[in-house]
């Protein structure tokens, strides 16, 4: 079946391991959208590049795809430096944010375009295209023009066009951003499933945290041209390395305190408002008096109406600013006592049943407290 696609550059080597070494992209005006990135993406991994707009994630992706050239550094795919090679020689395929379907070609011709370019005759390329179109469940629509399809269907066409050549690495530039919420969730799991079936490397650019943690094996969080954390999804979510990652991923409250003492690996901290915290420091040694950042899981916080005597450690009291019902949980936002306008608000995700057993309303005073194990120290930004 793969006879028409027996490409030497694809038959050889591995299955799409990507390695970036010292990648810098410098524009003419001196800006550095990508500023020294080292990153290893294992073959067959679903990797998400995550970050706010302007963090360099799309530039990164386009350099891997071969649509932009790095100013410095090497891009290795299965051990070969591919800088300067065409996308075809790299064995990569890209799915564009707006899908970039050829508006004058039918679904089948769009999908078969790559094979047409390679000089494969009509019969063979249509047979191959029909096979891939079936894989993305568009067989009935294969004669239609892209303008006659819905956004979700257009995306499937783009996907079919990208996988028809069996690339080693499939690159997605914000693939779900143009879809509505329902389709987004559906396509998200389909992408994940497709990646599992094909067994190739997916690199997926997104600015949506939940999308990244839902699909990715490896989440790469970027900030201003740097990688700030590259870890499995659960680690990035549950154990963000820095305050930036913790804030960006959500799911964590970021707090600060000055180190007072360390005893048996457990640090005692105190913040400007005099609140005390106890934090497991792990192996790292920090000087007494240093200001430390730490994170507390929002969903592992217990919440009650302000009691007369809050726990001495690891508790926050304040005024409830907002209450949002989220279905399985209720998001309660608290302004800690003594905090200024620029300080972070404290958020607790309270399990639905617990919340409605003893609801706390806006402008009520509340106390939130948590166990030592629900917090961890953050690196300085």
């Amino acid at each position, binding site marked *: 079946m793969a006879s028409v696609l027996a490409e030497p550059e694809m038959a050889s080597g591995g299955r799409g391991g990507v390695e970036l070494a010292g990648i810098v992209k410098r524009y003419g005006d001196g800006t550095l959208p990508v500023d020294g990135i080292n990153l290893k993406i294992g073959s067959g991994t679903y990797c998400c590049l995550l970050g706010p707009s302007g963090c360099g994630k799309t530039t990164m992706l386009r350099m891997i*795809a071969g649509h932009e050239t790095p100013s410095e550094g090497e891009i290795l795919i299965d051990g070969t430096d591919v800088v300067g090679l065409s996308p075809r020689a790299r064995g990569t395929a*890209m799915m*564009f944010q*707006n899908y970039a379907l050829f508006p*004058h070609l039918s679904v089948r011709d769009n999908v078969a*375009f790559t094979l*047409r*370019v390679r000089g494969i005759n009509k019969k063979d390329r249509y047979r191959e295209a029909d096979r891939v179109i079936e894989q993305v469940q568009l067989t009935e629509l294969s004669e239609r023009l892209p303008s006659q399809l819905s956004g979700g269907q257009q995306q499937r066409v783009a996907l079919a066009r990208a996988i028809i050549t069996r690339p080693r690495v499939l690159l997605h530039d914000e693939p779900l951003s143009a879809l509505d919420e329902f389709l987004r969730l559906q396509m998200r799991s389909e992408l994940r499933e497709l990646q599992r079936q094909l067994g190739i490397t997916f690199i997926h650019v997104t600015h949506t945290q939940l999308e990244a943690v839902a699909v990715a094996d490896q989440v790469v969080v970027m900030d201003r041209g740097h990688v700030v954390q590259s870890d499995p999804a659960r680690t990035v979510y549950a154990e963000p390395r820095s305050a930036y990652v913790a804030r960006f991923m959500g799911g964590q409250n970021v707090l600060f305190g000055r180190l007072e003492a360390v005893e048996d690996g457990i640090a005692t901290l105190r913040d400007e408002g005099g609140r005390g915290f106890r934090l497991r420091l792990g192996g790292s040694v920090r000087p007494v008096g240093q200001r430390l950042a730490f994170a507390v899981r929002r969903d592992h916080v217990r919440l009650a109406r302000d009691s007369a005597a809050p726990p001495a450690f690891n508790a926050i009291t304040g005024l409830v600013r907002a209450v949002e019902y989220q279905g399985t949980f209720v998001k309660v936002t608290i302004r800690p006592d003594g905090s200024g306008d620029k300080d972070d608000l404290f958020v607790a995700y309270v399990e639905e049943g617990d919340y409605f057993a003893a609801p706390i309303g806006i402008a009520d005073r509340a106390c939130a407290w948590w166990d030592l194990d629900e917090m961890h120290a953050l690196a300085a930004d």
Partner: protein
Amino acid sequence: MKAASRRSGASWLSPARVKSFALVTPLALVLLMFVVAPLAVVMAVSVFRYDNFEVIPAFTFENYASVLSSHLTLSLYLTMLKLAAMTWVCTLLIGYSVAAFLVFHVRNRLVAIGLFLVCTVPFWTSNVIRMISWLPLLGKQGVINQALMAVGVIHEPLQMLLFSDFSVVISYVHLFTIFMIVPIFNAMSRIDPSLFEAAHDAGAARWQTLLWVVLPLTKSGIVLGSIFVVTLVMGDFYVVKVMSGGTDASVVSAMYDDISTLLFPHAAASAAVLMLILTIMVAAILRLVDVRQELVSSR
């Protein structure tokens, strides 16, 4: 009943209806005055009789019979079709290249628009001046001949440069290329640049992208430009006269000769035939490409 009729009576003069008519009327009047009325006059005169002194109102197809049976008509049309074809090929190649350069190679949008305006500068002078300015260049003692002789490529002046099909086509190309550039420029500007990246990603070479992506997406521009150029050439009456040194005539210049000898009905019949032929040509071109659909399907 009463209420219903009153309602329908009111709807005839409802504000919405009045507004629609008010919007349609100015254009309808313009078309009536400047398209329908002159055409009606020409059609009417084309069936009139005439003698050496006057035009006589009548209803006869003699003029058409005379136009269609004349060998002159046939040879004039053949000449003009040949010139139109040559001009079309040249303007298409030049126009497509210029448009492609402006849209795809000039990165700065402002510079592209500036260069585009530069293309229109020749149109700030009269057609006649632009045509006549070729004479000292192409003439027997003209710049080109003298230069070629000075270099030693030729030993006697080339005769074919001026007062030939060559000089006629050169003038047409000079005059009409802009009409090819504008619609193609417009069609090219509407192509989503990410399509080129998608083509590159698919491994397409430049010529493949041109052939399978750019060309199909600029079809409407090519068709519109072709219609402009072909109808302009077919309707020309002075370029042929001036640039062929008076030896050739065009379909329209033959009409002009008729008119100057007061053969109005014959000229009118000839005009009607030309219009019919052009209509058929344009209809044939439009059969190939549905320009309306291409123009509507914007991004």
